[in-house]
């Protein structure tokens, strides 16, 4: 029974993190699939969302200004909006850059963002990071929440404490996973609506033939900036959820562009770029492959360790993470050459609108 619960919880965590990546991929799809913008600064924008959320919702700290202890929902909304503001500033100045120049610029900007988070320790606690980030649903079981409104209306601190103690210790996980999937669902529906709307069709027209669109009088630049902002706001939200999942963030390793930015790109390309369904599918697929490969590789290494008794397999296990990254890189090359449109091809909206 315990093993079953173990598998169940593992599956839930796959769904949770997969869902966070799905949001990142959906956001990237707005940038890339809708507007053809090569945004390589995903890690930076996720960091903005994560830090905004954390600084607003963590309890007050002696090391830095804030946290402000605000409700999680406020934190999520703020993450969404602040990411959008930053994107607006960046977008307006960078939007005209050609594809690989935009990639370089956005990577550079993401690094600058991380440097700021690392150095302005008064605001962000610098390299020590922010911990004890409240996790939606689980946060109710923390003293500072159930001893204040609105939970305090339904009982006093002691009875709440007793209640939470009586639950299994993983009671919040299904709820957390469902919350994330709920966000994915809502964002998906809204992006599908956007895709089929006049705005969405204009974006497709611009992507297919920019010259013709400009000649027809469309304000291409403005549309692109809009797509940049919307996609990045979604990434900010994803960052906030990631902060909740990890409960601890710091400026250097949490938002590693090699893992985060690269992985999301692989997800979008493999799943089907230009394609909301493809983004979600690619995210879950690649995340499952990534996680499953960890299990397989570790199991495989254990077997080798058993066969060659006494061999020090800890070094192999240590390096298995890099082997997995290598394999994902090869997956990307394979997909780029053989299936450049991804696994789920794009469904174009019919002229009459579906």
């Amino acid at each position, binding site marked *: 029974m315990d093993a079953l619960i173990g598998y169940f919880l593992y599956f839930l965590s796959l769904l949770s993190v997969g869902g966070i990546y799905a949001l990142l991929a959906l956001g990237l799809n707005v940038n890339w699939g809708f507007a053809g913008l090569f945004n390589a600064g995903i890690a930076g924008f996720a960091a903005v969302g994560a830090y905004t959320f954390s600084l607003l919702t963590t309890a007050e700290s002696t090391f830095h200004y804030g946290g402000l202890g605000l409700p999680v929902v406020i934190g999520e909304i703020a993450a969404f909006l602040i990411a959008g503001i930053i994107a607006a500033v960046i977008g307006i100045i960078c939007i005209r850059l050609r594809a690989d120049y935009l990639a370089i610029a956005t990577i550079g900007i993401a690094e600058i963002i991380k440097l700021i988070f690392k150095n302005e320790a008064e605001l962000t606690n610098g390299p020590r990071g922010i911990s004890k980030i409240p996790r939606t649903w689980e946060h109710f079981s923390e003293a500072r929440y159930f001893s204040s409104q609105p939970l305090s209306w339904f009982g006093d601190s002691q009875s709440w404490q007793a209640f939470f103690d009586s639950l299994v210790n993983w009671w919040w996980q299904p709820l957390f996973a469902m919350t994330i999937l709920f966000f994915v669902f809502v964002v998906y529906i809204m992006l599908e609506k956007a895709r089929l709307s006049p705005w969405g069709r204009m974006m497709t027209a611009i992507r297919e033939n920019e010259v013709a669109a400009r000649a027809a009088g469309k304000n291409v630049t403005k549309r692109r900036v809009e797509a940049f902002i919307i996609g990045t706001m979604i990434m900010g939200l994803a960052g906030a959820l990631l902060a909740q999942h990890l409960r601890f963030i710091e400026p250097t390793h949490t938002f590693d562009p090699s893992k985060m930015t690269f992985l999301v790109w692989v997800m979008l390309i493999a799943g089907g770029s230009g394609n909301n369904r493809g983004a979600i599918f690619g995210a879950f697929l690649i995340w499952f492959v990534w996680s499953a490969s960890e299990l397989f590789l570790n199991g495989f290494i254990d077997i080798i360790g058993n066969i060659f008794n006494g061999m020090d397999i800890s070094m192999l296990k240590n390096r298995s993470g890099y082997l997995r990254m290598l394999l994902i890189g090869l997956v990307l090359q394979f997909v780029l*050459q053989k299936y450049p449109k991804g696994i789920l091809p794009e469904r174009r909206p019919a002229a009459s609108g579906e």
Partner: protein
Amino acid sequence: MWDSFGFEFVNYYFVPGLVLGCIYALGAIGITLTFGILRFANFAHGEIMMTGAFLTWTFLELSKLIFGFYFHPLIACIPSIFIAIAIALSVDRFFYKPFRDSPTIMIVMASFGMMLIIRSLVQVIWGPNQITFVKGIAKPNGILRDLSGSFDMMLLVPSKHIFIILGTVIIMLAFNYMLTKTRIGKAMRAVSDSPDLAKVTGIDVEQVIRATWYVGGFCAVMAGVFMAMDTQFIMSTMGFRMLLPMFAAAILGGIGRPFGAVLGGLVIGFAEELSAYPWFGNGPLLSPGYKSGVAFSILVLMLIFRPSGILKGRVF
């Protein structure tokens, strides 16, 4: 004057800036060549530099193992150069060539992927930790110190820095000769101007592309080895760390203008080191934590305000 300002400024800020500038310049040459001739930003370039450094370290350890003493890095780097060029050519053949006629974005994506693949491969083989490249503290070169001291301007420059600066100058001169006096060098400039015209002129563009990987790969390995000699350790993230300053240098100098890349590299190197100097008052101009931000900021500013660079290279 020398005692109060010059000594500190030259020895602890200017010379390090020059050294860093040389390293960035060498790396930026490969980037601007790839940009000019192959027409894409090669994100995997830093990893070639890094691989060159790791291979050189391996050959250094081998020399100790086999011969009982450490060769000089500039000797041990010779086999690394061959291997790194072989890697660059294979990567081009299997991962970039399929996209020659595709939209740029495909090959940029592929180079992104190569960046991760090469780095992960190095991490699997050599491990993720920092490795000491050269042990010990680098003492200032005695000859230079005494010579400059006799002019009342004491230069305390470790030998490794002298090697780096001289090495870069020699490579620059050789490179200049190649581009202006040899057939393949002129062909490289021609393809950089216009690949289509080169084709209908009968120039073998694939041969020029191979030459680009030879030259770019060589400069990358040298840059990586010089960096390793300077900092005295190597780690698998050093490629990415150098990538953005090198992009900045290439764009600053003007894409497709190799001497612009050199100029850009020097500017960025100086800017990074000199930003820590206490120009006004007691503290450094820019806090050291933001040092790596200098190159990024120059990069972003150039892209926005003058993407053609100082020497007016190509704007796409």
